[in-house]
């Protein structure tokens, strides 16, 4: 008997589906964290493959920073409706009011750090014991160190020195009360893998991923930030209109656009094959602040 040959994308897909089904089998109240970005959109496709013709054994949960791209919100609602799955939205805005938190000040007031508060609130509200996220190990050097099942304490904190061994594809989701697990089914995918999968599966994405004209402010680093009501502009800010696309979708005040006229998934893949700058490097403003930025945020409960 000849063994059939599987492409690496087939293997990554099978691994991710296996992980999603382990979550369904091991936890009472899991949730899928859905940001509206390409990685979480890919997760929903994988969940369809894992659980159809049944329903997803978890709701989609969106932690809404309030600094969204309108296209992404529209896409989110449309997708949830098409899937017929439950969508829970919790707003950072409300957490700020409830916990009397201070809004981040400054010129580019990112709410990314505050997302963690809302995430922990929603985990407590619904007693989620597992949260599935679309983080990938190729994104950042601290992420490259995290397990697929990442056990967090009551405060959502990651302790990189106390990670459980993770053997073969046996995932240990046993936790004590108050603890929860963050699960990353596409840990082993790269940005390029995600795009190749989007292409192969013909997955529709929000328009902002493709080249479009946008009015942006030019940052001192040369990066382009789309104009929005949340930015505080100064007189001498340079405003330009450019053909851009987004490589990631996060808080709009800290996610830069890249210049591109890629209009199809194929174009984007060609772009990426030539890209000299990483996804985070090109687009995130908040990680450049400190070398251990991501590690610190994870230690504080960030996914």
């Amino acid at each position, binding site marked *: 008997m000849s063994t059939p040959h599987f492409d690496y994308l087939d293997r990554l897909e099978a691994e991710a589906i296996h992980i999603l089904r382990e979550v369904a089998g091991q936890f009472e109240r899991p949730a899928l964290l859905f940001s509206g970005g390409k990685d979480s959109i890919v997760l929903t496709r994988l969940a369809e493959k894992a659980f159809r013709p*049944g329903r997803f054994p978890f709701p989609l949960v969106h932690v809404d920073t309030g600094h969204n791209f309108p296209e992404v919100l529209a896409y989110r609602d449309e997708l949830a409706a098409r899937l017929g799955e439950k969508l829970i939205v919790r707003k950072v805005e409300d957490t700020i009011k409830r916990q009397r938190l201070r809004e981040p000040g400054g010129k580019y007031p990112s709410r990314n750090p505050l997302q963690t508060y809302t995430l922990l609130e929603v985990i407590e509200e619904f007693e989620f014991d597992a949260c599935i996220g679309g983080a990938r190990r190729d994104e950042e050097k601290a992420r490259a160190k995290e397990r697929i099942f990442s056990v967090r304490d009551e405060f959502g904190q990651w302790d990189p020195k106390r990670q459980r061994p993770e053997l073969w594809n046996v995932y240990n989701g046993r936790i004590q009360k108050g603890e929860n697990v963050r699960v990353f089914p596409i840990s082993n995918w790269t940005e390029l893998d995600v795009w190749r999968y989007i292409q192969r599966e013909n997955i529709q994405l929000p328009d902002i991923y493709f080249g479009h004209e946008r009015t942006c402010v030019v940052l001192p680093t040369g990066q382009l930030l789309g104009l929005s009501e949340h930015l505080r502009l100064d007189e001498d800010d340079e405003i330009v209109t450019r053909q851009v696309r987004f490589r990631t979708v996060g808080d709009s005040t800290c996610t830069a656009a890249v210049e591109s006229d890629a209009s199809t998934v194929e174009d984007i893949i060609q772009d990426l094959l030539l890209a000299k700058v990483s996804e985070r490097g090109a687009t995130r403003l908040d990680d450049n602040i400190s070398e251990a930025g991501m590690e610190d945020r994870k230690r504080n409960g960030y996914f």
Partner: protein
Amino acid sequence: MDLLRFITCGSVDDGKSTLIGRLLYDSESVSLDVLAALEKRQASNGTVDLALLTDGLRAEREQGITIDVAYKYFTTPRRKFIITDAPGHVQYTRNMVTGASNADLAIVLVDARQGVIEQTRRHTLIAALLGIRHFVLAVNKMDLVGYDEAVFAKIATDYAELTNHFNLPAAVAIPLSALQGDNVVTRSTHLPWYTGPSLLEHLESVPGTQERADEPRFQVQYVIRPQTAELPDYRGYAGQIQSGEYRRGDRVLVLPSGLESEIEALEVSQQEVESAAAPQAVVIRLRDDVDVSRGDSIVPLGQQPTITRELEATLCWMSEQPLWPGRKLLVQHHSTLVKAAIPAILYKVNVQTFAKGAAESAQLNDIVRVRIKTALPLAVDTYQDNRVSGSFILVDELSGDTVAAGLVEAANSEYFTAPVAPPVAFSI
């Protein structure tokens, strides 16, 4: 495109992380922004520390050592690689085991000045135990021994004794300098006496990740029951094919119950298919309304694993709390979780001599052979026969921590006669 997953191992400071960094750097797989961050931390002599590409934790950067595995990804025109950079420090051996459990190939680094030492032996033992068959012996820091051929030849000979001991195919030995980049991506002129491939050339030419032709195994992870008006009676058993191939119409047994049925339909990505094979994620529907739940195995009639409540297994003990005979634990055999007890530790393996010796307890990072009794029957194969159905972890019931990696060595059949075991490649 195919895939190769490899791990770097060897003792602390042998240069594993530097080697990975060099591989990524010289193959132009490092983005400009990541490089810029690296250059900011440049040493006083102006060189960048390539180990920082994988040593991503603050504690690692501060101490200059690797603590936990890092996963890195890169692609050449030939294939895609998943790299696992393991820590060399004995204290973090369990993290090395984590990395090795999913690797197809191990690069064992040796410092040319030190030769084969205890940690080289420990890591080779663990990698061999876990079933890795392809080894590369990377004799590193050749720059510090004047690129001396005799030094290299001696270490290669010493190491061959190890691979012989475990009945492994001979390791491919490559002299290199991770720091200088000799023989990592491109062949170096510093070692004219070496005529073999560079490390990357070799990694591009070895066989990639491939399924072994093992007997079919499948465990139910989750039962899909839509219970809708259109699909009131649909029951789909969702899981990943662990090994072998399944076909529509196969006569199968559900284990451990032993009930017989037939595969009525096989679904992949919501499409019915005629056949599917490991590692595909599938849904199996059975013709008969038999009782099947999470953790049950579905296997073809006549090719069943051993059903047992008594195992003999090799453990890599991973907890600071020692294991004493009589301990109660949980066995997680993939999607099955059962209570278990360890009535006896049969022996412990000396990692220096590989000799078996008596042991009262198992300490952190010990490799021991034990007997295990489980509260409910498991459907297992030996790890020799099947890396999936022959592997499990031990979980502490209270803390939930993973305390051991387990490999089934022998199982006493309860209901069926065990298949005759093929000759073992090596045993400890």
